Each structure stands twice: as C-alpha cells, then as structure tokens.
C-alpha cells in the first residue's frame, strides 16, 4: 500500500504547483503552439499515408539535435537540419507508399544510431540527452520559445496557403493533376512543412513520441467525423489538450512529460474509436432516409 502511495505521490505531487507553473510558462505556450501545428498537419499526414515517414523524420531530427548538442550549437537548428534532410530524401525518393516505407525503415535506425553516438560523445548534462528522445519541460527558454513559435507560425501559414490544393492532391491525386494542381510541388512543400513541424515537436515531446502529436489526434478526429472542417478542428483540440494537459500533469512528479502526453492522446483516441464504433453500429451514417416525412401542424 505504501509503495502505491509513494508511486502516486511521485506521479502527482501538486504542492508548490503555482510556482512550478510559472517556471514552465514558456513550455505551456510552446506546447499549445505545437498542439495547433500538430493538430492541423495531422489529417494530411493521415490522408497522405505518412505516419511512418513522420517517425523516420523524427529520428533523423534527433540525430541532428544531438549533433548540435555535441557541437554546442542551437539544438533547434540542429534538429531542423536533420528533419529537413530526412523529409526531402523521403519526398524525392518515396512517391509510392511501399518504396517510401522501405526508405524510412532504412533511415530510421541509422538516424537513431547516429544520435546515440553523438549523445555518447557529449559530456554535458544527462537530462539534456534523455530529453531529446523522451521530451522535456523546463528546457524552453525565451529565445527558444520565439524560435518554436516562429517556426510553428510558418507551418500554419504554409498550410493555410495550400490547404485546398493540398487536400485535393492528398485524397485524389489523379484528378487533381488533371485539373492543373501542381501535385509534385505540393508534395515537396508539404514534406518541408512536415519537417518543420517534426523538428519543433521534438523539443517538447521527444523524438520517440512525435507521433502522439502529429498522428494520434488526427486519427482520433477522423474516427468521429469526415467533415473537412471538423476534422482539423477536433484534431487541434485533441492535440492541444494532450500537450498542455501532459505538461501540467507532469509538473507534479518531475517525470518526463511524454508519458502524460501520450496517455492523454491515447485515451482521447480510444474514446473516439468507441464513439465511432457505436455510431457505425447504430447505422447513423449520415444518409438521408427516403421515407416521406410527416409534417405536423
């Protein structure tokens, strides 16, 4: 019993919560921005079948970040470099899903290995090392926050500019091409935005758990709606709740934030699956029923 209480108090200890909150204000702002970015880009990741690619990009991004740590340069810049290289390679070589998956499968362990090598050579604080893989909270200082928010804003603006043709090219590439949508250019532009989104996500949730931010919220939203307006909206709400909620919960115990983020995001996904499943079973597909309506007067 005592062990359980110890465990719970390690997980949730909310004395001095107010002071802690002030300390991680930057992280919460960064988390909210990440939630918006992840929630918006997620539905496209899903409909373009890039979930596995996101994982690959994040491992190379991790390699870039740990190289930056070793060399003593800006970690965000390093992780940006890694993820851009990965995204462009995947975008150029892997137009078909199977090809793409094998490229990702080859690159991912290589990136992870490189990252571990750089970290092993690094002699600084070990918390920094672990944080790149599993997430960290107190690490966001004000200039870094500016960088994260700035990059997030670029991703959101980029998505807004190409939202409609990107939707067309993602779900219906043959017809989109026939109607002069620059499908290839859009695909490369999207990979660049995805690289930016991945690089900033790593700073908060860590390389291993980026999917919880870029994939799970969108996957959950897509279980309950197919509306092109509601899907990104719900996905953003889910992602923001997961990240900000995860940061706030993790304050209690001084544990990494990622288990909290991933658990919230997974719980939301489960609920959405159940809701979607119940709706399918009740046959509420949105079809209009043909029977004539009785008008009551």
């Amino acid at each position, binding site marked *: 019993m005592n062990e359980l209480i110890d465990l719970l108090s390690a997980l949730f200890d909310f004395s001095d919560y107010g002071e802690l909150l002030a300390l991680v204000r930057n992280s919460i702002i960064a988390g909210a921005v990440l939630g918006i970015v992840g929630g918006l880009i997620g*539905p496209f990741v*899903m*409909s373009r079948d890039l979930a596995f690619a996101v994982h690959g990009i994040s491992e190379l991004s991790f390699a870039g970040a740990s190289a930056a740590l070793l060399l003593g340069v800006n970690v965000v810049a390093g992780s940006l470099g890694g993820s851009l290289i990965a995204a462009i390679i995947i975008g150029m070589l892997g137009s078909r899903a199977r090809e793409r998956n094998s490229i990702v499968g080859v690159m991912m362990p290589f990136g992870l290995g490189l990252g571990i090598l750089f970290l092993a050579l690094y002699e600084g604080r070990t918390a920094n090392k672990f944080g790149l893989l599993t997430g960290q909270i107190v690490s966001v200082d004000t200039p870094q926050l500016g960088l994260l928010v700035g990059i997030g804003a670029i991703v959101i603006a980029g998505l*807004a*500019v*190409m*939202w*409609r*043709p990107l*939707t*067309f090219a993602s*779900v*219906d590439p*043959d*017809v*989109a*091409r*026939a*109607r*002069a*949508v620059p499908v290839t250019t859009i695909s490369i532009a999207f990979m660049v935005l995805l690289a930016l989104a991945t690089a900033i996500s790593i700073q908060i949730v860590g390389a291993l758990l980026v999917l919880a931010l870029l994939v799970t919220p969108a*996957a959950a*939203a*897509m*279980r309950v*709606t*197919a*509306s*092109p*307006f509601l*899907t990104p909206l719900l996905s953003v709400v889910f992602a923001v709740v997961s990240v900000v909620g995860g940061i706030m919960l993790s304050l209690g115990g001084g544990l990494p934030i990622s288990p909290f983020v991933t658990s919230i995001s997974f719980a939301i996904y489960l609920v959405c699956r159940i809701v979607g499943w119940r709706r399918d079973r009740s046959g509420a*597909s*949105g*079809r*209009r029923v*043909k029977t004539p309506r009785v008008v009551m007067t």
Partner: protein
Amino acid sequence: MTHTAQPVLRLRAATLAFGDRPLWSKVNLEVAAGEFVAVLGPNGTGKTSLLKAILGQQQLSSGSIELLGEPVRRGSRRIGYIPQQKLIEQGTPLRARDLVTLGVNGHRWGLPITSRATRRHVDEVIASVGASEYANVPVATLSGGEQQRIRVGQAIASDPALLLCDEPLSSLDLNHQQVVSDLIDERRRELGSAVLFVTHDINPILDKVDRVLYLAGGRFRVGTPEEVLRSEVLSYMYGTPIEVIRTRGRVAVLGAPEGYGVHDHLEHHIDDRWHR
C-alpha cells in the same frame, strides 16, 4: 451551346512513340460537342496515354491536339476527368459533397472556403447524378457504384466541354455499369459535352456510342461501331484472324491476342465450353 463547326477536340496526325515503338501514329480525330466516342483496344496500345496526351501530361512525338481550337495544355478546366475506379480509402476526411466541391475549386489556393453560390451549384450537381441521399456521407463508406456517381458529379461540376473517362466502369457490377454509363450519357446530352470513353468492354455503352476509336497493333480505325467492329477490320489491325460475333445486342471479339479489345462475358462462357 455553339453550333459552329468547331470541334471540341481535334487530333491531327497525332503520334506517340516510346523509343522506336509507336503506340499510335498519325491519328486524326475530331470530336463534336455532344458526341460520344469510345476508345477501344487491347492493353498496352496507349489508350491511357491518349488521355494523358489530351490532359497535357504526355508530350506527343509529333502532330497536335487541340481543345476548342487551342493547343492542349496541362490541366485545362474545360476537361472533366473520371479516373479509373480506385476506391477512396477508409478514413479519408471527405464527404461526398466535398469531393464534388474539389472538382469546382480544388485547384484554387487558400483555405477551403466555399461560396454560397458554389455550394448551391454543388447541391444541384449532386441531385443531377442522383446522389442527394448520401451527399453528406463519408466518401470512403460509399459503395463502388455510389463513389463512381460522385466521380461523375465531380467531373461535370465545372461544366466541362469534354469528359474524359478512363475505364470508369471497371470493377463495377453489371447493374452499376448500366447506371453509371446511363448517367454519363444523360449528362452529355443535357450539357452538350463531348465524351471520350476509354473501355475494354464496349457492351455496356454500345447503345450510346456514336463512334469508336479502335487502337491496335500501332494502327487505328475511327467509325461507327458497325463500321469498325467487324471481323475483316479487326483481323487487319491485329494481323491475325479475328472473329466478331453479334448476338442479342452484344458484341464479342474472338481470337484476339492476349489483352484483346472488346471483352465480353459471353466470350468467357464460350471459352469455358470449348475448354471443357
């Protein structure tokens, strides 16, 4: 609708070759407004390449293709395109009406904000293809036949002068083949669009087709189905004896090499009997 002599589509000595191998050469074809032309031929004769060339995605080796008197370019908005039937994947965040809306404004940059006028137009198009009942249903949950109706709606939503159909009936059951081809036929009569319809089986559209473009063995023939689908014409094109049989309003081509042109269920039955 204009009643001038200008054809919607004009191919002049259009030739497409990959290396030394000509797929088709010196094809001359004029398609008038409201005309229904079927493109037939065995696999690998460049039927899909022909559509790509008309869409401006495939450069001709020589000759020219004009749409409404202008050389074709990439992505003309005057062309409606119905692709080979590929089912939309489960979980795609798109309702039937959204797919049709993309046909109107999917090429425009920016956020997916659709004007009220466009929404009303989309509603009308959906009603005209008989899909109002499932306009708000996720496309991925629709059956193949229903998806293909929505595809027809998407293609006609921009009021095209030319409808390009790439095997729109393949993988549909006989009933839906009839429904979808009736729909395309009805729309072209109402809107006056020309139709170029690539198919491996002419039978579902035999009663609608004005003319046939038959591609085989680097040769081509243009004419009414009665003129082109004859034993001596096809035997000449394939360079091997071919027999064309007409029975109960259907056409079957017997003896064509692998990937023959006019495929028919009748033929399978006959083959079965012969092999047994």
